[in-house]
C-alpha cells in the first residue's frame, strides 16, 4: 500500500513536469551517495528476552536532484536503506521525492517531503508533519518521508503562510524482538489501529504562519488529522493497546535572538476524544564566541520541559530540565561536540548524552554518540524499560 502511493505521487509529479518541459531548458543534474557503517554497543545485558549487546549495521543514503528554470523548478530525491541486527531497523524508505515549482512569492511542492518546525533543542513538540523514524535515532530527529502537497505563500507584510494537504499517514517505527530501547512487549505495527475509519488514508490538513520582525521569529501552526504519536493504553494483564487518535493540535514557537542570547519557546495544545493536554519547552542558549581567537565557540543551553500527560508522555519529558553545552571548534574539519543531560525534577532519573563529529579529508566523517540512562526510577512508566539500554554508537560515513 505504501508503495502504491509512492507510485501515484511519482506519476503526478511526472505529469506536471511533462507539461512544463516543452521548451528545452538547461537541466542541472546532481547525484550524491553516502555510505555509512555503524556500530552500537549496549554495555548492560538487555532487560528483555532476545535483546543483544552488539549491533553492527550499514546504511546507504542516495540523493538525486534535477533543477531547471534557473532553479525555480526541480525534482528532488533522497533515499535511505539500513541493514541491522534488529530486524525492525532493517528497512528502506523514500525520505524525499518531490516536484517543486517556485514563482515570485509562492512555492508549490508535490510528493514525499521532510518539513521541520520549531526552535528548541531537547524536544521537538511543534514539529508534526513527518512521522518519527524512532528506531533510527534516540533524539527523534530522523523522520519518514511524508506524502504531501505544500503551498507556501510569502506576503510582503504579513509573513509566510504554508498550507499542507497530507493524504496518507505513516506509522511510527519501533524496535523489534532483538532490538534495544523498547518496551517489554514488542510493538507490532499491524496491531496499531486508527481511531479514524479511513485509517491511514484519512485526508489530513495543516497550516503554519511564520513571521519575523527584528529580533523575533514566530511560528503559529495548526494540524488536524491522524496523530503522529500513538496513544498507549495499558491493559490490566500487562499488555498494551495502542492506536493513532484523530487530533487537533495548535503549536506556537518563538525565538528571540538578542546578541549572544537565543530565547526559545515551543508549546502545543493537543485535543482528541481520548486525550487533551498542553506541553511546552522553554529555555535559552548563550554562546561565548571565538574564545581563544581561533574560532572556539562554547554555547550553554538550558531548557525546561513540561507535559500535562505526566507519566504517559511518550517522550518521558513531563517535568524535566535539560542542560547542555555545544562546543564548536570552527576548524577545517568542522569538529563539534554536544554534551547534555536531562534530569527529572521530581525523580532521580537522568539521561546524559554526548555527540561529537568531525570530518576527515574531504569525503569522510566520523560521529560518536553516547547515551547513559542513570538512576532511572522503576516507577517511570516509559523510561524504566530503557534503564539497561545505555549505549555507545560509532558512525563512519563516506560520501561519493
Amino acid at each position, binding site marked *: 500500500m505504501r508503495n502504491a502511493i509512492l507510485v501515484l505521487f511519482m506519476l503526478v509529479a511526472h505529469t506536471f513536469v511533462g507539461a512544463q518541459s516543452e521548451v528545452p531548458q538547461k537541466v542541472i543534474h546532481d547525484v*550524491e551517495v*553516502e555510505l555509512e557503517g555503524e556500530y552500537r554497543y549496549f554495555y548492560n545485558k538487555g532487560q528483555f528476552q532476545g535483546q543483544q549487546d552488539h549491533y553492527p549495521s550499514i546504511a546507504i543514503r542516495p540523493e538525486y*536532484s534535477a533543477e531547471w528554470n*534557473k*532553479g525555480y523548478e*526541480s525534482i*528532488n530525491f533522497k533515499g535511505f536503506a539500513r541493514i541491522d541486527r534488529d530486524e525492525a531497523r532493517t528497512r528502506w524508505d523514500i525520505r524525499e521525492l518531490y516536484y*517543486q515549482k*517556485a514563482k*515570485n*512569492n509562492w*512555492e508549490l511542492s508535490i510528493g514525499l517531503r*521532510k*518539513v*521541520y518546525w520549531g*526552535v528548541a533543542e531537547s524536544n521537538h513538540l511543534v514539529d508534526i508533519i513527518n512521522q518519527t523514524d524512532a528506531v533510527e535515532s534516540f533524539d527523534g*530527529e530522523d523522520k519518514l518521508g511524508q506524502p504531501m502537497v505544500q503551498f*507556501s505563500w*510569502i506576503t510582503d507584510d504579513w509573513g*509566510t503562510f504554508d498550507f499542507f494537504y497530507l493524504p496518507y499517514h505513516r506509522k511510527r517505527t519501533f524496535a523489534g524482538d532483538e532490538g534495544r530501547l523498547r518496551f517489554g512487549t514488542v510493538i507490532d505495527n499491524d496491531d496499531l489501529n486508527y481511531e479514524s475509519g479511513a485509517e491511514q488514508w484519512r485526508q489530513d490538513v495543516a497550516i503554519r504562519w*511564520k513571521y*519575523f520582525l*527584528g529580533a523575533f*521569529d514566530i511560528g503559529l501552526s495548526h494540524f488536524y488529522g491522524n496523530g503522529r504519536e500513538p496513544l498507549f493504553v495499558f491493559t490490566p494483564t500487562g499488555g498494551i493497546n495502542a492506536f493513532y487518535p484523530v487530533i487537533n493540535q495548535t503549536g506556537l514557537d518563538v*525565538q528571540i*535572538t538578542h*546578541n*549572544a*542570547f*537565543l530565547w526559545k519557546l515551543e508549546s502545543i495544545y493537543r485535543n482528541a476524544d481520548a486525550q487533551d493536554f498542553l506541553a511546552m519547552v522553554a529555555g535559552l542558549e548563550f*554562546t561565548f*564566541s*571565538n574564545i581563544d*581567537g*581561533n*574560532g572556539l*565557540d562554547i554555547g550553554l543551553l538550558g531548557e525546561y520541559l513540561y507535559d500535562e500527560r505526566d507519566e504517559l508522555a511518550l517522550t518521558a519529558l513531563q517535568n524535566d530540565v535539560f542542560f547542555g553545552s555545544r562546543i564548536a571548534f*570552527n*576548524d*577545517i*574539519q*568542522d569538529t563539534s561536540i554536544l554534551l547534555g543531560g536531562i534530569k527529572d525534577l521530581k525523580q532521580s532519573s537522568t539521561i546524559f548524552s554526548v555527540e561529537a563529529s568531525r*570530518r576527515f579529508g*574531504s*569525503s569522510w*566523517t566520523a560521529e560518536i554518540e553516547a547515551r547513559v540512562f542513570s538512576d532511572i526510577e522503576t516507577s517511570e512508566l516509559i523510561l524504566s524499560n530503557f534503564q539497561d539500554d545505555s549505549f555507545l554508537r560509532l558512525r563512519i*560515513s563516506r*560520501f*561519493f
Partner: protein
Amino acid sequence: MKTKIITGILALTISLTFGQTAEERGLQIAKAAEEADLGFGSSTVELKMTLKNKNGQTSERFLETNTLELTEDGDKSLIVFNSPKDVKGTATLTFTHKEGSDDQWLYLPSIARVKRISSNNKSGPFVGSEFAYEDLSSQEVEKYTYKFIAEEGSNLIVEQDPVDPKSGYTRRLVTYNKDKGYRIEKIEFYDRKNALLKTLTYSGYQLYKGKFWRADTFNMVNHQSNKETILEFSNYDFDVSLTDDDFSQVALKRAGN
C-alpha cells in the same frame, strides 16, 4: 554616469583638500567607493575557497553566493555550500543592517531545519578559514569611522576603525584605487592588541557592465598563524534580476535542497 560622479568627486576633493580634516577625507573616500558601486541590483557568483595551513596542506570548499542590493538598508545575501559533500546544501541567509546587528538564518539540510542564529560572532572564522564573518559581510559606510592616511599615486590609504566593539580589529588599513572606481586593492587588519594580523590582497579585477569592479581572487594571509585562504570567484552574473522573494526563508530552504 560614472565619469560624472568621479568628476564631481574630483572637483569636491580639490576644493576641499585644504580645509578638510583627515577624518573628513577618509569618510569622503569611503562614500565615493560606495557611490561607485551603486546600482548593481543583484548578482550571483560561484566561489572556490582554498584553505592552506602553515605546512602548505590545502582543503577546498565550493560555494554559491547571491546578493541583492538595497540602498535604504544593508544588502541581503544567500550563501550555499556545494562541498565538502557532508555539508552540501547548508546555506545561510543574511540581512545586513547599516546600524545594529545583522539578521541571519542557517539551513541544515540533513534535518530540513531553518535556524535563526546570532550574528554576534563577528570575529570568529568563517568555516575554518582566515576570513572572519565580519570580513565577508556587506561593507556599509556606517560600520566604521575613517581617517585618511596617505596618497600614493592613484592609491588612497584610509584607516577604518570598526564602530562595533565586538569586532576583532582595532583598525584596518584600506587601499583604494581612485582611478579605478575606488576599488579596494588591499586591506591590512590589526588585531585588538594593534598588531598586524592579516593582509587581504585583491587581484584579477574585471569591470562588469562598464561600472562594477570585481576581483576574481581574494588572498588572505594570516601573519600570526602563517595560514592562508584564497577565494576564487567565477561566473559573475549581474543580469539575474533577483528580488526580495529570492531572499526569503522559503528561498533559503529551496537553495539548500
